[in-house]
């Protein structure tokens, strides 16, 4: 497929007209590991994924998460976990994985037709 990309310039300056500097390659050996950040916005609520960041260790990850994700009182508690420890379901399996639930409508309260006189149910 021959796809032509329209050139949009704000935050998308095309390569062809851009000045190209020396390309010194970098190794990733010294990179700080990546962490996923979860924030509890309010006491009583779940921790929710907020984003990710790089940090040398867990303590630094929490401090950086505080600085980046809770500058406006967005949270009262932070979890961090190294991204490499997250296991995820495969999007290619989504159909096989989640499809079986779609025909089990009897799992929903609305499946049951009950008389109007029945109160508090």
């Amino acid at each position, binding site marked *: 497929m021959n796809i032509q990309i329209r050139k*949009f310039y*704000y935050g*998308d300056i095309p390569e062809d007209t851009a000045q190209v*500097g020396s390309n010194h390659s970098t190794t990733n050996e010294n990179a700080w590991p990546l962490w996923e950040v979860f924030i509890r916005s309010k006491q009583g609520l779940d921790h929710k994924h907020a984003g*990710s960041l790089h940090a040398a260790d867990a303590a*630094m990850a929490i401090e950086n998460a505080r600085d980046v994700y809770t500058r406006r009182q967005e949270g009262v508690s932070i979890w961090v976990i190294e991204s490499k420890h997250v296991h995820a379901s495969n999007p290619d399996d989504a159909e096989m994985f989640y499809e079986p639930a779609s025909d089990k409508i009897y799992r929903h309260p609305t499946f049951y037709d009950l008389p109007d006189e029945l109160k508090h149910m």
Partner: protein
Amino acid sequence: MSLHDLEKSFQDKIDKEIKIEPKDWMPEAYRKTNLRQISQHAHSEIVGMLPEGNWITRAPSLKRKVILIAKVQDEAGHGLYLYSAAETLGSSRDQMIADLHSGKAKYSSIFNYPTLTWADMGAVGWLVDGAAILNQVMLCRTSYGPYARAMVRICKEESFHQRQGFESLMVLSKGTQAQRDMCQDAINRWWWPSLMMFGPTDSESTNSDQSIKWKIKRKTNDELRQQFVDMIVEQVKILGMTLPDPDLKWNEERQHYDFGNINWEEFWNVVKGNGPCNKQRLAARNKAHDEGAWVRAAALAYAEKRKNKLKNKAA
């Protein structure tokens, strides 16, 4: 599935407004376009700290200083959200930073203009952040999930940037003659570069509308620019200042403001590296990165040492 089928089901998802997530199949060109756009956007946030950082130590009051620090800190956060989104497309942070520092990667040209007076802090917040916001509000609905989520977070924070800028200009506009002159001068210098932020006119882009078809963008450069002009022309009246364009005129038929010709030669000159501050900006970034190298190495060594200590204790 054949490549053709994959592309078709990909486009179906886009058409149905289903977001694309990092592990989903995507055309290579979609990945590349997003990676380039998101990383350039990230670089813009980071380099964008420099013109404003220039005035932190010289802010006229403690109040203005803490506001400016908070804004610049926000921009650092925006850079981080965006780098994280870009990393999900298979590039590394180190590679992106290296590309920025070598001059290979680009950032928004607006940040290659100097901030000469205090009034520039107001003009930048009002006009530059204002222009960025229009673009970013649109990008909240972009088709790539991590980019869209980063944009939602960023937009929540941006509104304060524009408001503090306008408020700061409002104070100047009610001040002494010298302050009013400084305010007008800053508007005069930032107006045209702000219009250029939206990029060349649509007629210059002869290629197909792939980015729109993929819903990476939902509005063209000219649509966004017009929206910006219409908005600012009204706002500048409240300041009692003017915009430096004699051709600015309400067009009854179009129901939009007409405006004068943009100096595209200047635009391309700055993009190509010959703006007033291109070299200075890259030098500042490289210096900060190089001088921070020992801190990064030390943090890693410390983390390593603590890990080993824990291991030895367990043994």
